[in-house]
Every structure is written in structure tokens, then in C-alpha cells.
């Protein structure tokens, strides 16, 4: 298994280590519920070095990204982050990734860990065909990434940051320093809380980790693992690549239709158009279990006796104190308040379709424009 630069620290903290897409990652340090709640009420620090970064550089960098990604990026400002999707030739989602604009001719794609190599192949192949004047480089091994998430994140990070964090709106970033180390500080994350994604040279990321934990400990900051990351993102209604989203899923079947700009060309548009005209047959929905039981990935979903879908993510929700999940169901059963049953071993558990997200934080009335 591949190890992040923080692996020795996880071992020293007695983390439980699991194989996540070929990476030896901490799933929990104390326990998932504690780490989850710490993130919701205070702040937690996550090792996210396994995620990928692809640099796209050159005069025609934007042209390449416009051709490769579903979202229109012409109005993206320097210092802004945009979520987008990279599709295969069948219109299926290879990756849902974020685009960082550093300069008119310099972008990063921040990728999920599992599809990283497929992303690189796809974007490189498109570049080869379209012959734009730019280059694509996988810089993941040189870059480390930490996520500092939770309402106390700004308070913890500010004394170590070389920039005024309150001036960074949601889904924006600054090139600055953290603990005197050159770093990119982005106000974004995967937990549904305020917080930051911090990028720095892989060689120096451990110093930032140490300094943040030192600085944050008196406030209540703790390290958190992939277990809490998963329950946090699920409560926030965010999908997990490789589980909720695979290459067999088109963006119209999941809550990603808003990432598609039909007014431009992009790789995978033709099959997606066909899909839009034909209409989708299944949709990803959120559900809550009524009563007892926890639905897990792969469990079958029924309407009466008829099998109508499968659970893709399911867990106990520490914030809501009930079992929640995401499932693909036939479109006629996708309306909120629809009653479903889910086979949990011998039990048929009652469930109801609900709107996403399951959990939404109370936002401060900030000036920051919510423009993801």
C-alpha cells in the first residue's frame, strides 16, 4: 500500500489503518462518532494527501479544460474554485473534481484518489487529439493536502496563516503560507462545515500537520480519519466517487445536472444529450430509515415486492441520530416522501425518500458570496 507523508504520525497516534484505494489511510484515531461530532462542533484535521493534483499550464489551458469538463469555466476568476465533472465517451462520470485557477494560463485539477490515473489519461488523450498549446502534469506525489474542517477552523488556522482568512470567501483560495511554509489555503471541504483545504509541498506537509495540532489542541482540535469523513460528507449530501458515482453513472442521474453547461462542447456531451432526450430511468436519492436498522452499500431497495434499486451509501448519522443513506431507485420512486423498504438481512426496513442534504450548517451572515 502507498503511504502518505503522515503515515508514521498516524501509527504513533494508534490510528486504525485501512486500505483505501491502495493507500494506507487512518479510518479512525479514537472513534468515528467522537471525531464526527468534534468536526461539527469544533474542528478536526484530516490527512488528505492521497488525493490527486493535476497541473494544466499554457496559453490554451482554459481551452483544454473547457473541452474536457462539463462546466463552463470562462467566468472563473483567479483564486476561485469550481466543482466540475470529467466524463468518459459514454457520458459516465470518471471524476467529480475541483478546478483551481491560479493564472489565466495556470490551473490545477484536484482529483479524487481512486480515479486520479484515469483522469490524467483522459485529459492527456484529449490534449493529444485537440493539440492545444498547454501541458498536463500529474503533480500529486509532490503535493500534500490537509483538510481542516469545522466551525473553529478559521480561529485555529489564522495565527499560522500568512493571509487574512476572513477575506477568503467560500470556494476561493489564496497562495500564502501556513507555519511559514508556502501553502495554498482554500475555503472549501467535504464535511458540510466551514473549513479549509491546505496544499503544500509533500516534504513539508508534516510540519503543517504538527503545528496545526499544537495550535488547535487547546481549542479542541483533533485528528479525524476517513470514517468520520465519510459520515460527515454523507450527512452533507455529498457523493463518494467510486461508490455513489462510478463511470456507469451519468451526471443527470445524480444531483450533478447543475455541473453541465449545455451551451458549450465538452467530452461526453453527445451521449449525455441523448440521455437527456430519452430521459433518465434511475435517480440517486437520499433516504432515512424509519425505525430500526442501518442500510449499507449494496442492500436492495423495494417498493412493495418489486425491487427498484440499490443502496450506494448508508450509515448511522451521528448528528441526526438515525440511519440515513443514498440509493439509486427507478425514477418513479424518487419523489421526496415516497415510502420504500430496504432489505437489511432478513428484515424489511421501512424508509422514506428525503431531500438532500440531510444536514445543513447554520451559516453566519457573511459577505462571502456562496458561489460554488
Amino acid at each position: 500500500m502507498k503511504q502518505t507523508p503522515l503515515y508514521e504520525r498516524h501509527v504513533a497516534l494508534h490510528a486504525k489503518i485501512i486500505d483505501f484505494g491502495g493507500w494506507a489511510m487512518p479510518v479512525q484515531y479514537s472513534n468515528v462518532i467522537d471525531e464526527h461530532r468534534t468536526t461539527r462542533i469544533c474542528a478536526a484535521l484530516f490527512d488528505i494527501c492521497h488525493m490527486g493534483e493535476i497541473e494544466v499550464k499554457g496559453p490554451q489551458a482554459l481551452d483544454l479544460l473547457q473541452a474536457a469538463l462539463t462546466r463552463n469555466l470562462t467566468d472563473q476568476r483567479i483564486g476561485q474554485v469550481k466543482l466540475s465533472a470529467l466524463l468518459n465517451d459514454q457520458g459516465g462520470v470518471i471524476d467529480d473534481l475541483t478546478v483551481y485557477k491560479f493564472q489565466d494560463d495556470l490551473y490545477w485539477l484536484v482529483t479524487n484518489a481512486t480515479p486520479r490515473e484515469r483522469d490524467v489519461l483522459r485529459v492527456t488523450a484529449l490534449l493529444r487529439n485537440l493539440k492545444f498549446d498547454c501541458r498536463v502534469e500529474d503533480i500529486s506525489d509532490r503535493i500534500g493536502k490537509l483538510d481542516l474542517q469545522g466551525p473553529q477552523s478559521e480561529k485555529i488556522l489564522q495565527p499560522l496563516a500568512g493571509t487574512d482568512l476572513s477575506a477568503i470567501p467560500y470556494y476561493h483560495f489564496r497562495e500564502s503560507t501556513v507555519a511559514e511554509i508556502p501553502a495554498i489555503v482554500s475555503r472549501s471541504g467535504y464535511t458540510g462545515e466551514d473549513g479549509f483545504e491546505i496544499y503544500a509541498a509533500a516534504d513539508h506537509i508534516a510540519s503543517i500537520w504538527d503545528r496545526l495540532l499544537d495550535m488547535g489542541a487547546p481549542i479542541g482540535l483533533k485528528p479525524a480519519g476517513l470514517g468520520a469523513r465519510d459520515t460527515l460528507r454523507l450527512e452533507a449530501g455529498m457523493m463518494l466517487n467510486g461508490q455513489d458515482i462510478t463511470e456507469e453513472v451519468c451526471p443527470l442521474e445524480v444531483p450533478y445536472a447543475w455541473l453541465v453547461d449545455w451551451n458549450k462542447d465538452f467530452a461526453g456531451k453527445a451521449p449525455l444529450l441523448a440521455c437527456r432526450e430519452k430521459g433518465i430511468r434511475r435517480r440517486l436519492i437520499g433516504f432515512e430509515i424509519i425505525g430500526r436498522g442501518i442500510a449499507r452499500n449494496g442492500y436492495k431497495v423495494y417498493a412493495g415486492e418489486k425491487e427498484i434499486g440499490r443502496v450506494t451509501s448508508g450509515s448511522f448519522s451521528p448528528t441526526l441520530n438515525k440511519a440515513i443513506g443514498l440509493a439509486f431507485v427507478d425514477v418513479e420512486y424518487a419523489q421526496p416522501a415516497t415510502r420504500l423498504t430496504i432489505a437489511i438481512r432478513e428484515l424489511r426496513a421501512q424508509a422514506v425518500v428525503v431531500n438532500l442534504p440531510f444536514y445543513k450548517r447554520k451559516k453566519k451572515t457573511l459577505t462571502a458570496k456562496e458561489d460554488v
Partner: protein
Amino acid sequence: MSKPHPQDRLYSQDHEWVKTESDTVVVVGITDYAQEMLTDIVFVELPQAGRKVKKGDAMAVVESVKSVSDVYAPVSGEIIDTNTALENTPDLINSDAFGEGWIAKIKLDDANELQSLLTADAYEALIKEETH
């Protein structure tokens, strides 16, 4: 580290404990080591009273936030009682695995079956092996 293992009961290789209540009835739970491995237990599926189990059958299910684990019957017999307190407070297993967190009472088919279980010392040796 997990708590010391009470000497007043026997243990299975699958991390259940078995305490004799009378000549024919035993109380069954999972060990403190097992709950520590599972962490934050959020759901317990109890067996139906009256169900017959064979040694090694999955008789209950314990779920943490991230995992689903079977609890195996450490002996053969009939389930005569279950700890319904676990339905609303499954974390009793985390806080008191050897006491309040008991799972079921089993009426033994054959008391001789207890001889196949491990003593506290033998069980401790087993988990030492597992953790090293």
C-alpha cells in the same frame, strides 16, 4: 487497552464470553476486546427468544458506524432471553461489555459443550497473539 478478563466465565475464539447462570443456563456477550475493535456500537440486532442455535451460528448482529459484525453462538441451545436494553442503548456494550452489555441467555443443549471454550488466561493469550 481492554479491561482484564473476568475469571468467572469462559470465552470463545470469536470473542464471545459465556457465564454460567445455573446448571443449564448461560449468559452470553462479546468481550471488551471485541467492543474495542468495533468501537462506537450504534445498532444491535437481537435474536428472537425461543430460537434454537447451534454453536457457531450467527445469532446476533452488532453494528458500529462503519461496520457490521455477526455475533456467533458460543454454545448450542435455545435463546430464552435477550437484553432488550440494547435496542435503545446499544453502546452499553462499549461501556460495560462484561456486564450491562450482555446479549442473550441460552439454555444449553449439552453442558459438556462448555469444555470446548477457553479460560480467561487462554483467551488473553489468544488476543495477545492477534495483536502482535
